[in-house]
């Protein structure tokens, strides 16, 4: 006989991967895989939708939208589609409560524009209050940032099991990004260059309606080694479905070992 105490509500995750073919330069698949598995391991229903040129984001089926980085040439091929076809459904999805995570090229395209060293200005979506200019030097290397007191997701528990508030990753970008007044940095630089190599900030965070935009230069991949960040995104999704629910913990032993190792790397 089954115990009929409460209807069991299964949380669901609609994960949208934008331009998985063109924007997949630096292990971006690892981020999607990590979000998928961490929800799957907790028994959620997970749907991954890949949106390429020719498809359109469904704003009603997008809890987390992810976009990685691409080579300049590939970024050009998707930029037009991103700014015209996806712009309004993406904006609607975020205003509705979705989280948009953009890494590297994905981060730059969420901002107002990118001014390359040689060539014309490339417009971005302008949802994130940042601008990027091409730099003469590529910023490459290991990065550690501190996200203490940024509170970028209300109630997100970034004080992880180690008691640290660090994020670790690897950066590789020539674009230098500057934040406008509406965006806050994701964290402050402990090691590495970050947004532009001189103001000590890394990444950007901004709310839009019920939702949130996150941009960063950290790959490596980002989410596998930063399970607290992955869970902060999933917690945001869960709260929209079950306001009082908490994420059950997972065995993150290996993830923290990798995180600890990354803290010790030279920039």
């Amino acid at each position, binding site marked *: 006989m089954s115990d009929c105490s409460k209807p069991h509500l299964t949380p669901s995750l609609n994960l949208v991967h934008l331009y*998985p*073919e063109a924007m*997949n*330069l*630096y*292990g*971006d*698949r*690892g981020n*999607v*895989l*990590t979000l*998928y*598995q961490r929800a*799957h391991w907790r028994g959620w229903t*997970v749907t*991954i939708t*890949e949106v390429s040129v020719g498809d359109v984001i469904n704003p009603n089926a997008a809890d987390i939208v992810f976009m990685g980085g691409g*080579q*300049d*040439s590939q970024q050009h091929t998707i930029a037009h589609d991103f700014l015209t076809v996806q712009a309004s459904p993406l904006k609607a999805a975020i205003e509705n409560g979705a989280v948009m995570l953009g890494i590297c090229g994905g981060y730059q395209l969420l901002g107002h524009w990118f001014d390359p060293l040689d060539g014309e200005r490339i417009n971005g979506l302008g949802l994130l209050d940042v601008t990027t200019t091409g730099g003469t030097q*590529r910023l*490459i*290397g*290991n990065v550690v940032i501190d996200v203490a007191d940024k509170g970028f997701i209300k109630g997100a528990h970034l004080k992880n099991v180690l008691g640290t508030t660090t994020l670790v990753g*690897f950066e*590789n970008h*020539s674009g230098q990004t500057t934040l406008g007044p509406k965006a806050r940095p994701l964290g402050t630089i402990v090691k590495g260059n970050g947004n532009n190599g001189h103001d000590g900030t890394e990444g950007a965070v901004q709310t839009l309606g019920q939702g949130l935009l996150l941009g960063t230069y950290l*790959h*490596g*991949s980002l989410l*596998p*080694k930063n399970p607290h960040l992955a869970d902060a995104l999933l917690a945001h999704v869960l709260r929209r479905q079950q306001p009082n629910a908490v994420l059950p913990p997972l065995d993150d032993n*290996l*993830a923290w*070992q*990798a995180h*600890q*190792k990354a803290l010790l*790397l030279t920039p």
Partner: protein
Amino acid sequence: MQAVIQTARCVLALWAGKCLLWLLPTFKLGQGTTVPGRVARLLAPRLLSWLGQQAPQHTLIITGTNGKTTTAGVLVSILKAANWHVACNPLGANMLNGIATGLIRSASLFGNLNHLKKRLSQPTAWVLEVDEANVRLLATEMPIRYALVTNLFRDQLDRFGELDTTAAWIRQGLERCQLSEGQLFLNASDDRVAALASVTDSTHVTGYTVLPLADTASPPDLLTLIPSRFEQAKPVSINDSLNPSKLFALNKAFQIDSHAGLGFTGHWVGSGESFSIPLAGTFNVWNAIAAATVAQQWGVSAEAIQQGLHQYQGVFGRADTRTLHGQTVQIFLIKNPMGTQEVLRGVVATQPAVVLLALNDNDADGRDVSWIWDAPFEWLTTLPPATHVVCSGQRAEDMALRLHTIGLKKLTVELNLQKAVEQALALNTDSGKPLIMLPTYTALTTLDQQVLPAFSSNP
């Protein structure tokens, strides 16, 4: 007078290089694959162009992200089977100093590179593996009439920035070569490589391709549900897509017909001429076919090509099998997603009981390890659940996390490579299967120079 001084300086630098070539290995100070060239070029900056004056008509550079060393090795083996006189830069030392070292090794005491020729009419070739960023530098030092580009896969992006940048550097290098007096050989199935055809007249370009077995497995979707987004080597039809814009005067396509033990058999489309490639891994078929394409163009007989393929001794870690404590050990270098995909294809086919992965993040490995998330390690989930994976190297934790995330259970993390090999051998005892080792470049070097010799000497 000036010229005499220059020549004297080059000869002295050559002697210094030759001394180091003898000293370094003798006193176990290294393999001496780049230092002799570096010192000699410091003493005489014009050394390379001085030796380069003797570059024969058949001087070939081999560049691209993957397969340079094996392609060069197979070609040298073929040319030697055909009784050519060959100078080359062995062991993957492919920057200018490594190339200088190779030539210093081959030269006489007065810089003559032809003194070992058995007879004047013996055909001569220089086969030089060149780093993608060094092509344009080498091309200003000596006349190069033949060039081969293997592929442009993601590799060490943190060193070069992006693939398009790498392609642009190779293009600049090719523009400085004398290809109109020779031939440019291009992997026709790699769009970025094929686009390089425009550097010279189409009659001086040969495209080659390998058509895979019809039933070649693609990465399983499995629990990840994430379709693997790899650009597979596309099967192309000779008549249409291979030659869309008449970029190539000549196309060579090799159809794989079957797996034969650790190797492959297949035939040239068109002539039907068949031969066997005794190397593991589909990627080695590409390397062998690249070498065979050059050899054919240079008039080497089919018999010599087949003989050279069979005589080729794999460069360590590029396709290496050895015996350790009575167990067969197979070692494959992994360094980027595309190459690793091909290695994993072979690994899954051998159904091993134990796999040792060694991930380092030194400059030569690429300091950014995010590539492991792009390589389809998902394939390992098709192995029986009892399969052990031992993760080692400086970034062993990252490797283990990669495999944990796709649900592999039998994982061991052991940072010390020596201990990791001990564990892997112990786990593999009585399995009756070869132990598979998949190291990145510097982990491979440590295995080769320190770890494995200790096992062979203390059985």
